[in-house]
């Protein structure tokens, strides 16, 4: 590598470090934002409000209720009538309502089928559905039923189904995607905004070298951010497992961010101000992030979206990263992700490179 290359690279890193706004944005995205995502977005039921009406003497019913404990459930609250209970559900103060009617205990003691009425606020579909599952298990224990099967479940790779580290990781991957695009585009657009673009063109330097050095400098910034985020948040605060190879992840991240810089080059080619960069990046990246399976596995998507998702490099990156972190997949089995990232990445980079190259 020659001197001009390092000069450009060094200049971009210096310029980045000197612009407080960008540094603040990058630091925020790689730490606080990821922390908020890990800490704040909890989909599994927690602190579920349960209300109940008990018209029985309160033997079995109270026993059942004692099984609903923290952290999943708040202490159940008693209502005097079904009407009051449904009022509370309608006001969305209570998520699940249990009604132990007069017949309930009698039927149960007599060995008949005892019916427990459960009212679910299905506007929060996933929480109420999981709560229903909990109830079913509790109730099953009460039924003096000797089932001939025992189920032994292994939650592979993440025995406690710890959601925090997972959400943090997913957010990290999205942050990488968004930042590499925005940062790369900003590096070029800033030259346009400040009028230094023409000066750059008049340098006796191969434009390809300029583009390469500039985009690589931003990849370095993002990689540094990744290390920061992993150390302080993903491993530090949320104790994510690392079942695979750390270096496989870093290599994949490097390849991915380098190729996504191509999208940044494209954005830089079509925008004239930092504001436009923000607009274009969001419009382009939102679909990419959603098609990636960050929120929903690809196979559960609408069929049309499934096909489209093949074209999102983020899809391969996210699946690959999940596999490395949780599934501990070996290098040899990571090839689909590496080739997906590289193939689409090369295409994207080539396209962006050509698009911005035309401005030189």
């Amino acid at each position, binding site marked *: 590598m020659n001197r001009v290359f390092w000069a450009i690279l060094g200049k971009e890193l210096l310029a980045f470090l000197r612009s407080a*706004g960008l540094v603040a944005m990058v630091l925020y995205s790689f730490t606080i934002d990821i922390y908020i995502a890990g800490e704040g*977005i909890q*989909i*599994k039921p*927690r*602190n*579920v*409000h349960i209300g109940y009406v008990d018209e029985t003497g309160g033997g079995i019913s109270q026993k059942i209720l004692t099984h609903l404990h923290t952290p999943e459930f*708040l202490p159940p609250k008693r209502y005097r009538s079904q009407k009051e209970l449904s009022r509370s559900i*309608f*006001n*969305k103060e209570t*998520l699940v309502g249990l009604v132990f009617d007069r017949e309930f205990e009698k039927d149960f003691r007599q060995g008949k*089928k005892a019916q*427990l*009425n*459960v009212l*679910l606020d*299905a*506007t*929060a*579909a*996933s929480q*109420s*559905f999981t709560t*229903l*599952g909990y109830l079913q298990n509790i*109730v099953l224990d*009460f*039924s*003096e*039923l*000797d*089932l*001939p*099967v025992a*189920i032994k*479940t292994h*939650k*592979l*790779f*993440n*025995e406690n*189904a*710890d959601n925090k580290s*997972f959400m943090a990781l997913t957010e990290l991957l999205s942050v990488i995607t968004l930042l590499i695009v925005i940062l790369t585009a900003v590096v070029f657009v800033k030259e346009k905004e400040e009028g230094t673009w023409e000066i750059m063109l008049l340098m006796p330097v191969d434009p390809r070298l300029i583009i390469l050095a500039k985009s690589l400098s931003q990849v370095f910034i993002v990689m540094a951010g990744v290390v920061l985020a992993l150390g302080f948040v993903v491993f530090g605060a949320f104790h994510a497992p690392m079942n695979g190879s750390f270096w496989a992840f870093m290599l994949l991240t490097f390849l991915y961010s380098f190729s996504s810089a191509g999208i940044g080059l494209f954005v830089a080619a079509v925008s004239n101000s930092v*504001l436009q960069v923000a607009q274009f990046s969001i*419009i382009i990246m939102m679909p990419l992030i959603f098609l990636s399976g960050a*929120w*929903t*596995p690809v196979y*559960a998507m*609408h069929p049309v*979206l499934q096909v489209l998702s093949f074209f999102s490099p983020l899809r391969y990156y996210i*699946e690959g990263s*999940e*596999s490395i*972190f*949780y*599934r501990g997949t070996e290098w040899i089995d990571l090839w689909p992700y590496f080739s997906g990232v590289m193939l689409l990445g090369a295409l994207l980079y080539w396209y962006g490179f050509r698009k911005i190259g035309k401005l030189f």
Partner: protein
Amino acid sequence: MKLGVVKAYMLKELTELLRTRLIVMVYLMPSMILILFGYGIRMDVSHARTLIIDNDQSKYSRALTSKFEHSRYFDATVTQMSEKEALHRIKQATTDIIVIIPSSFQKRLLHGQKSEIGVFVDAAFPTRATTMESYVQGVILNAAQEATQNLGTPKGLIIINNRNLFNQAMRDEDAIVPGLIGLVLLVAPAILAALLIVKEKENGTIFNFYASALSKREFLAAKLIPVFLLHSVNIFILFLMATKLFDVPFRGSFTLYWLTSELYILISLSIGMLISVVTKRQIVAVVLTVIITIIPGFLYSGILMPISSMVGESYIEAHMFPVMYYTHILYDTFLIGEGLASAKTQLYLLILVFYALGMLSLGTLFLKKELK
């Protein structure tokens, strides 16, 4: 208020919005977010790729496997592959669930002995793992109950009779889309409004306001009314998308939905405007608005977590942002239909009114008709 002056300013604002093509953002962004998130977020699990290793190959084991095969939640395949190979499949992320039926399953069952069914779930995606686990348990226990019923009458059985209020089929769309409207109508108007004043500050055209006799209130009215009207159209677009595209039922009063949404847009615009008043650069205003609106919008709209489940700080924060009050009324009009009969809806509506008034007065207070 000099109406003619305000009208002229409004006309200028509209012309600029049209000619700078910012208007595309007004209509593209909300619809795009609704479509992407509406189709993109799936909380329930369907078509989980399931491998069933049936080591028994008996009548009873087949009864169990067919239950998996007939469930829409699973894409089940019965194989003879080894456990090790199946686990490898999970590592390659080509399988989500493995169910292993032991070889002496039927024999032990008929002898009244317990047999252990092994279940492996890929927990790389934890919430989905929990859901899949409960589905699998449900299917197996259900099959077991049937089997025991055939073998003899059980005693003291409790059966759960659940009524899924407001969303009979527990559709994700019904649960998510109203919340998304709450998010979209917070973020999109706020970003647009955030640009309105800071743009003039950055370009220098703000001098026209400083140097003219236009009052602060007239200036704000001229800025907000055009974008308010433009965004009002979104109320109808989003309504149509929710009910036609996502088939979300609408059980409440449209008037209530409409008026509350107008009020809410006003609040979102005021938030953006407040940011626009205190910042100096467009890009800072946009980034700040995104940070201030998107995260609370997601957390407190009820898409991810019901407000009732929040404790501590998040409970307080949820009550500080307008999105909670609005989505409460949204879910009511779409799924519940209580409307103004509910005292809580009345209260929340009132809170929104005061919120709007408060934000607008703050904006007027902070806007200074002088250089800083």
